[in-house]
């Protein structure tokens, strides 16, 4: 029984890692940029949500909408202010650029929200429900549900819509995508809006579980990075499975081994993957990415 309860918690935590990894992966797949500001974007989303719920806890559902809008706007800013000027520069310059964006977002967050941790209400409150003798926090179920909806939405966007085919064509061969008329700049802008919105939602999902401060996203981003490696860098299903796997490893490791080692367990797992299966669980065939 205890194990099932733990697994539900692990799935909730893993879902948040999965959404963060999805944000990271979508940006990487479409633009080739490894976004080192993901953690700070997660934090920004949580803080925007915190401000909305601070007005009144009944606004918690509205907070999700507000975060999507605010973070999409931030994504557009990211596209215009960082991606466009840097996109033809060497990879290292672009990476440093995203780190700089992260620092900027973090400092602006600090200016607006200050250093004190903020408590954030969940749209489903902080109750627990009893299910067949299990005690499950309603927020954990909510997180899992929202994540499933997001994954389905991303799936339909990327794999079942004409726009998604254009996205995948662009990811596989940008030059040829331009030759067939794919509006590449518009798609890059959309990519950053989507990546930022997903990161923001991840932050808002996490917020009721932890107190929110400007450092909230930092460790989350590291876990999402581990999730991307374990799932297979460059694979969208991999990001999702990797996120869940990291959540399971962390929660089960913490309860069966020792909670002081939970981060170490995750990173040990990541290093094992790097050593023995660098393509991750869903390593794509090289031919797919030719």
């Amino acid at each position, binding site marked *: 029984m205890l194990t099932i309860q733990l697994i539900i918690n692990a799935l909730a935590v893993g879902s948040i890692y999965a959404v963060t990894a999805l944000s990271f992966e979508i940006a990487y797949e479409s633009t080739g940029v490894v976004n080192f500001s993901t953690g700070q974007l997660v934090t920004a989303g949580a803080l925007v949500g915190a401000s909305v719920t601070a007005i009144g806890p009944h606004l918690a559902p509205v907070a999700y909408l507000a975060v999507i809008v605010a973070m999409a706007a931030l994504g557009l800013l990211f596209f215009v202010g960082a991606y466009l000027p840097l996109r033809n520069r060497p990879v290292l310059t672009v990476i440093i650029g995203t780190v700089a964006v992260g620092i900027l977002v973090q400092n602006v967050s600090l200016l607006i929200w200050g250093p004190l941790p903020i408590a954030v209400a969940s749209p489903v409150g902080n109750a627990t429900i009893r299910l067949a003798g299990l005690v499950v926090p309603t927020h954990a179920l909510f997180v899992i549900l929202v994540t499933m909806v997001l994954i389905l939405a991303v799936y339909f966007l990327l794999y079942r819509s*004409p726009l998604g*085919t*254009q996205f*995948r*064509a662009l990811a*596989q*061969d940008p*030059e*040829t*995508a*331009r*030759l*067939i*008329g*794919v*509006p*590449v700049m518009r798609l890059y802008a959309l990519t950053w809006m989507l990546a930022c919105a997903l990161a923001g939602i991840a932050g808002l999902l996490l917020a009721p579980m932890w107190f929110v401060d400007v450092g909230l996203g930092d460790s989350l981003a590291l876990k999402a990075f581990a999730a991307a490696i374990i799932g297979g860098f460059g694979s969208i299903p991999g990001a999702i499975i990797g996120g869940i796997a990291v959540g399971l490893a962390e929660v089960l490791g913490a309860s069966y081994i020792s909670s002081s080692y939970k981060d170490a367990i995750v990173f040990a797992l990541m290093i094992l993957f790097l050593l023995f299966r660098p393509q991750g669980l869903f390593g794509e*065939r090289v*031919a*797919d*990415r*030719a």
Partner: protein
Amino acid sequence: MLRCSNLCVSYGAVQALKGVDLTVAEGECVALLGANGAGKTTLLRAISGLVRPRSGEILLQGQTLGGMAPERRARAGIAHAPERRRIFPGLTVLENLQVGATAVRGLGARMQEDLDRVYAMFPRLAERRTQRGWSLSGGEQQMLAIGRALMARPRVLLLDEPSLGLAPLLAEEVYVRLADLAHTRITILLVEQNTAMALAVASRAYVLEHGEIVLHGASAELMDHPRVKEAYLGA
């Protein structure tokens, strides 16, 4: 329809095109011949906007293309089936064709008509419509590259070495289709090293050497031209 005048392109210090003049009239199939490194691909890339000319002009229906981006040229009616086909490896045959229609907006139901037309032209693509691009043979990839370009309902079709890397029989098959296509009076600029096949399909041809047009004329004339016979037809 398409006209290049005094086109010069350089890669750093290398001058790939040195003042090329070329026209393709509406409904005409024109071949561009030349050896490895002559600058054929460079010319097509300049027309579709992937490389910036250093000087000279490219006109589509009398309008200069200037610094227009490749994706906008695609929407203006230039479809380019690039060298080595460049099929999207992770997309299925059907998705490769669908995405090929990106340049034509508001296609809606007519998309199916266009798909049917491509499938009728290359029945093998219809059989393999759910297969991923990377899993196709070279010949099938070439058919797909041509089909994908046709999905854009182009005003001008640029084809870069459609016979490249194909077994003779397959190359022949592709050229039979190209001949049919040329009969539909679609405007084509065909780059090819396989001179005999290209001259059989095109009505006129240009010969490019070291970035300069050295000869041009009707295909029938060029076929009998001593220089072409010696250098390009291996006779």
